[in-house]
């Protein structure tokens, strides 16, 4: 009991202890804020990628695409674990406005809007046709025109706070999409002067996926138009098939099942004319398909975590030094305690208890201040932007609205336990040295 009483009194009565508590609180505060925001950003980024891609993708990186996709779509449609299937045409093109005053290289995605909305979150990214995805390619100003859906950053401007300046109706804008059609063998389909396929589309809607790269360079076209523009040949081809699983199907299980179906399908098509195109096709979960992008974000999170882990180590040394000073000041107490029969283990337990309290209190303060800060982080950022034109996260890079501020219990527990552990480790060496000290030395007149 005396250990509890003394540890508590040391905590409350020694001013130097407040520095240790402050160091722990600051560290916990910073780590809580950074980890919450980074975890939120990464989680948001992953969720957006998941929504953009669906659960699983059967596809090829080759611009030639692969044949017999319709047969495989039928197989997938018949499976009870599949909720949505969407074949797509994926290629690159040049977008130009009528008159040619604006030209930009873009990525095109030929889709069936209804199917694609069943397999991915495409429908939710629309603005004017959100409620009726089947009309995504029908401009509201003239449904008979051939429409296209354009990445929001290609269409809309933003205000000073990076908020999009939406318009009540899409403007009647004609754009030309030009690309090189390829044969099944990968050769240019059109020899001579007319190498390029070009088609005029009318702006029908914009898509806001929340992924900067997508929103800045992707144009959705009707599937058949995409096929006509990019792929030539008697046998129809597609670039990929996006799949969404039923909610009760685990991602890995679903992908494995699709993989097995694909292998079987490939064997069945082995003798077909364009069977060789199937060799380039892979079956990947959304995480694998978007790995290049997600990995970069995760790396950023890891680097940030590592940086703040170093800060944690610094805190550990601060705690170590503070404890060394505190315990050095308490050498007389240690001598007194030993003179009344307190053991070395009890001395270590006493100062470990003290360290635990410092860690607990510091973590509590850090968590509370962190929570307050996160509660107001978006207001703080708005204020900084208004007064200093400063944004914590550049919205041209991070396509986010508000800064994520939802604290995760698991992360918080890890941070608090780490802080307490750092305090205990920081106090261990001085405690051990104190426990080993000889009472006659600490109780000597010269030591007073």
């Amino acid at each position: 009991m005396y250990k509890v009483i003394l540890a508590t009194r040391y905590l409350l009565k020694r001013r130097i202890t407040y520095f240790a508590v402050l160091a722990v609180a600051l560290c916990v505060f910073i780590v809580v804020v950074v980890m919450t925001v980074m975890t939120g950003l990464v989680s948001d980024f992953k969720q957006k990628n998941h929504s953009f891609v669906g659960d699983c993708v059967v596809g090829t990186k080759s611009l030639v695409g692969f044949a017999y996709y319709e047969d495989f779509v039928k197989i997938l449609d018949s499976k009870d674990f599949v909720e949505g299937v969407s074949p797509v045409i994926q290629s690159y093109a040049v977008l130009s406005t009528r008159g040619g005053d604006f030209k930009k290289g873009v990525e095109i995605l030929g889709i069936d809007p209804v199917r694609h909305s069943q397999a991915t979150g495409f429908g939710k990214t629309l603005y004017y046709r959100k409620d009726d995805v089947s009309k995504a390619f029908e401009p509201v100003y003239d449904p008979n025109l051939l429409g296209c859906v354009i990445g929001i950053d290609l269409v809309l401007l933003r205000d000073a706070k990076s908020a999009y300046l939406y318009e009540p109706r899409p403007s009647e804008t004609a754009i030309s999409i030009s690309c090189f059609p390829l044969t099944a063998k990968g050769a240019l389909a059109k020899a001579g002067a007319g190498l390029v396929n070009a088609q005029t589309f009318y702006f029908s809607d914009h898509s806001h996926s929340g992924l900067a790269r997508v929103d800045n360079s992707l144009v959705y076209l009707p599937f058949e138009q995409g096929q006509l523009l990019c792929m030539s040949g008697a046998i129809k081809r597609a670039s990929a098939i996006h799949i969404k699983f039923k909610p009760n199907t685990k991602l890995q299980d679903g992908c494995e099942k699709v993989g097995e179906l694909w292998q079987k399908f490939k064997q069945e098509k082995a003798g077909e004319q364009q069977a060789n195109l199937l060799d380039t096709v892979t079956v990947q979960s959304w995480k694998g398909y978007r790995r290049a992008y997600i990995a970069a974000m995760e790396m950023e999170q890891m680097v940030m975590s590592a940086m703040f882990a170093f800060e944690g180590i610094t805190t550990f040394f601060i705690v170590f030094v503070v404890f060394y000073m505190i315990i050095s000041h308490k050498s007389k107490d240690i001598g007194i305690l030993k003179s009344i029969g307190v053991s070395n283990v009890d001395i270590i337990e006493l100062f470990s208890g003290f360290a635990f309290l410092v860690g607990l209190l510091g973590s509590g303060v850090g968590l509370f201040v962190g929570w307050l800060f996160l509660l107001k982080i978006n207001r703080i950022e708005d204020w900084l932007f208004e007064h200093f034109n400063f944004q914590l996260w550049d919205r041209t890079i991070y396509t986010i609205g508000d800064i994520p501020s939802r604290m995760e219990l698991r992360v918080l527990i890890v941070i608090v336990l780490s802080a307490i552990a750092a305090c205990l480790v920081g106090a261990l060496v001085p405690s051990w040295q104190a426990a080993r000290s000889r009472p006659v030395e600490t109780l000597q007149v010269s030591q007073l």
Partner: protein
Amino acid sequence: MVNALSLRAGPVTGALISDNMNKDDFILKTEGVYKSYRMGATKVEVLKGVDLAVKKGEFVAIVGASGSGKSTLLHILGALDKPNKGVVAFAGRDLSGFSAGELNRFRNKMVGFVFQFYHLLDELSVLENVFLPMMASKSLVGWFACRRRAKSRAGELLAQLGLRDRANHKPYQLSGGERQRVAIGRALMNEPEVLLADEPTGNLDSATGNGILDVLEKLNKVGQTILMVTHDERIAERAGRIITLADGKIT
């Protein structure tokens, strides 16, 4: 000021002391105790073969000049330090044969220390300082079981030492004499067999020092064995027996 009869509640029993020990047996005994320290490259011989025997109920004063080894001897007798050579026996048992746990129990229950500079814990109240040895000997559960009895005994000790109204004060709020009486209360809390006092009046004025010696005398009269170290022969005269330590030996 002090009701000495109630300061000692009764005999302490346990594995550290023999139950059939009689009045004429030595409670503390040393044979050929040597102790040296290293001070840089120099080896300082502090004790050079000390033979000492203290009977139960004796009040012994050890006198000697500064640096003669008085405090070192007291620390060795109280198991705060170990001799380089020689035997220190408590109630017939050689302290060198005690395990670490037994030595801790010995310091907690068999001896009580009173230091020149009181050595009270500043973070604890006067009452808490007094019952600290009992609290230190108990587990958390054990303490909750006996805390009322401990507080009551500590309160009694403080009352008998004239400090009833100082129980909730902090040590720094007390005078030197009051602090030393608190230290005596702490030393007596677990009813030790031997009270070891290291210059208990060394930091006090003459009148206050005499008050402390009165307390010790009264304790001795009711059977408390006391070993007191002092450099002042007039103070030593208050003891029943004086041992002089000079140049590391008893003369």
